[in-house]
């Protein structure tokens, strides 16, 4: 196979990956709390073809010896875009939206900590404590408070959540404080990896304290402190920007066509070589 064919084949493959990614984003246009993904591209490994000795440094040449050939472009990395999505009012007291760059801490199925941005929580009867209701995500994972315990409130009470995540419960006997939801500020988004059910976990080897900082431990005057707040009765929408995704898609489509055209052209050249002899 000639070099042009390899280059165009490699880039068609990576453009297809890019298109898959865009399709993933567009498919999640209406997923609550979805964070769009972005891909980086680099040119692929280059081969330097050596030339005959007496041809290497002829006068007028301006580059080092050899003829430099590349093999297309490849996708080198994926990153999550943690920008704020729009906040939509729902009126449900257990719907929570985070404004700012933070995550709710939840307990994953294996007992470890996980994080989520999706605040469409529900109150479920707590099997451990009859008469109590546990705050869980829509997939049933417990939401944790600042002491690291699952949030549990008296059943049939009125739940109020302040901007800093403080829980207040009102029932027939009065108003009680029920701790504070654990919010973690995202310092390094690349230290997070997507898990199932809209949750994030730490990438292997990452130190939790580096990647995330508990919002309630931030010192006064820390610039991050005023940038996080919880809104009750609202949900964060997906942060996918449809017009950007469509523009990217157009760009990918044209680049795909261009590469396909290069492939056709090198195929035609190969055909010519095959038909040298009549």
């Amino acid at each position, binding site marked *: 196979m000639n070099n042009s064919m390899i280059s165009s084949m*490699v880039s068609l493959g990576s453009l297809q990956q890019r298109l898959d990614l865009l399709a993933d984003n567009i498919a999640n246009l209406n997923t609550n709390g979805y964070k769009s993904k972005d891909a980086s591209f680099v040119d692929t490994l280059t081969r330097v073809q050596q030339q005959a000795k007496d041809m290497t440094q002829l006068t007028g040449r301006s580059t080092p010896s050899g003829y430099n050939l590349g093999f297309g472009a490849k996708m080198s990395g994926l990153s999550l875009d943690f920008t704020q999505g729009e906040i939509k009012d729902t009126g449900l007291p257990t719907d929570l939206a985070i404004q700012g760059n933070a995550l709710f801490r939840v307990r994953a199925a294996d007992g470890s900590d996980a994080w989520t941005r999706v605040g469409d929580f529900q109150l479920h009867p707590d099997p451990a404590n009859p008469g109590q209701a546990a705050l869980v995500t829509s997939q049933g994972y417990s939401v944790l408070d600042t002491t690291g315990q699952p949030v549990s409130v008296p059943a049939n009470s009125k739940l109020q959540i302040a901007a800093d995540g403080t829980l207040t419960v009102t029932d027939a006997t009065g108003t009680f404080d029920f701790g504070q939801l654990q919010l973690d500020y995202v310092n390094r988004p690349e230290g997070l990896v997507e898990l199932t059910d809209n949750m994030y976990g730490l990438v292997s080897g990452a130190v939790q304290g580096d990647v995330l900082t508990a919002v309630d431990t931030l010192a006064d005057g820390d610039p991050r402190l005023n940038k996080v707040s919880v809104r009750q009765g609202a949900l964060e929408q997906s942060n996918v920007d449809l017009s950007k995704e469509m523009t990217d898609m157009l760009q990918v489509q044209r680049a795909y066509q261009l590469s396909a055209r290069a492939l056709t052209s090198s195929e035609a050249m190969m055909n010519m070589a095959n038909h040298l002899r009549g």
Partner: protein
Amino acid sequence: MLRGLYTAAAGMITQQRLHDTVTQNIANVNTTGYKQVNSVARSFPEVLLSAVGGKQNSSAPIGKLNTGVFAEETLPTFTQGDARETGKTTDFALVADLQLQNPDTGENYVFDASGKSVQEDGSVVYQPQAFFTVRDAEGNVKYTRDGDFHVDAAGRLLTAEGYEVLGTDNNPLTIGGAVDQLKVDNQGRIVNSDGTNGPQLLISVANQPNQLVRDGNGVFEAADPAAAGINPTAAGAQLEVRQGSLETSNVDSAQAMVDLMTAQRAYEANQQVIQYYDKSLDKAVNEIGRV
């Protein structure tokens, strides 16, 4: 043997190389910080033809002939790509228009749009180019225009390919605080949260950018740093680091398409010439002398 047969074959190979180079450009039409390459062809050294078997023993010269062509080099075009706004704090675009002083006249060279200046004596001076300085896992220093950086879980500033980004002290940079609070000024200096200056991105200037060898993965390598004239940026150089932007590829897709067609048709022309030679040979072998 007919001389032109091999000339045409060399022409085909060269056009194939040209086509390969254009395909590589097309493949990277959306690659951040990619610099277009152009294939430069050179004719084979001339040979002197002489008539043999004349009346005198001494052969009479006829003239000079080139017996072919070869793709000599791939010349990168380091023109500035457009800066595209992304809003990410770890994306950087390098916008540079570096000047070079002519040591004879004391004035700055005037560079054309492709970044070169042709002198009266015919020599060519290339415009110096600025690059981010990165280091691979083996400790080799590389240069890149691709400012699509990332901060990993340990806080290291890395390229998309995982190379460490170096600071002015030649050590890899680490980002202490939250990534979304990162501020970098237009000289590549990290501004701490209290407003003081932190470490600075090492921007290297290559006075002979053509001496840099493309290494894949978005980086260039200087096989001979002295020949490439690599230096840290001088103070007051005309360059700017734009945080929250990325430099797009400088490939001109319309030009690439035209180059592609040209290479293909020139290849075809050479192929036709070979076929004509083949027909001539056919006549010589099979028809001359037929009774």
